[in-house]
């Protein structure tokens, strides 16, 4: 899985009936320091992520292992919205509005 940022949505009127009810979003991959990689993926949204959200997405046949995508021609699925992550014990990203929940151990 990779971390990505939802940067857009996909609308298509002519598509396979098996994917007719799904919401597709364009996700730009991020590296471990939240720097964008030059790679974009069209992924099915299974958790209701919004524009600008940082999300986790799975690729390949694993993406079909949700009730929404089971048995459908899907190879990328958003399955979680990221609240925060750290690298080498340093906080890299925290979602807006969650600051009160993330006090560092030294402060408490």
């Amino acid at each position, binding site marked *: *899985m*990779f*971390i990505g940022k939802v940067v857009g949505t996909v609308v298509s009127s002519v598509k396979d009936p098996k994917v007719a009810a799904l919401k597709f979003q364009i996700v730009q991959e991020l*590296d*471990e320091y939240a720097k964008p*990689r030059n790679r974009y993926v069209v992924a099915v949204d*299974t*958790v*209701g992520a919004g524009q600008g959200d940082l999300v*986790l997405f*799975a*690729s*390949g*046949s*694993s*993406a*079909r*292992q*949700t009730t929404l*995508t089971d048995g459908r021609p899907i190879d990328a*699925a958003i*399955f*979680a*919205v*990221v*609240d*925060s*992550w*750290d*690298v*080498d*014990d340093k906080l*890299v990203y925290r979602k807006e509005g969650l600051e009160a929940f993330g006090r560092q151990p030294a402060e408490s």
Partner: protein
Amino acid sequence: MHLGRVIGRVVTTRSLPGLQGEKLLLVRPLDEQREPCGEVLVACDAVSSGPGDLVHVCDGRESTLALHERFVPIDATIVGHVEEFTHDGPGPQHGVGLPRSAP
């Protein structure tokens, strides 16, 4: 599967029901010299790993077989800690993982 080093933790609250309680970690893939190779990825944890651990990671749909719930969209899972490894290539042919940090 490949070698990797755990470098961080990822926290999510809004995720699918089958993933509640699964730990997500950032893993940097390593080559046989323990040099970084490839892009940092996010993996589920089946063996209680933490930052700094040398681990091996299973990719693809098979990686869900190590988890409590198998019907989840996970494509990478940490399935073991590496204590030591050997290889025939150039350079040092023997590597060891760091000792586990005390909890």
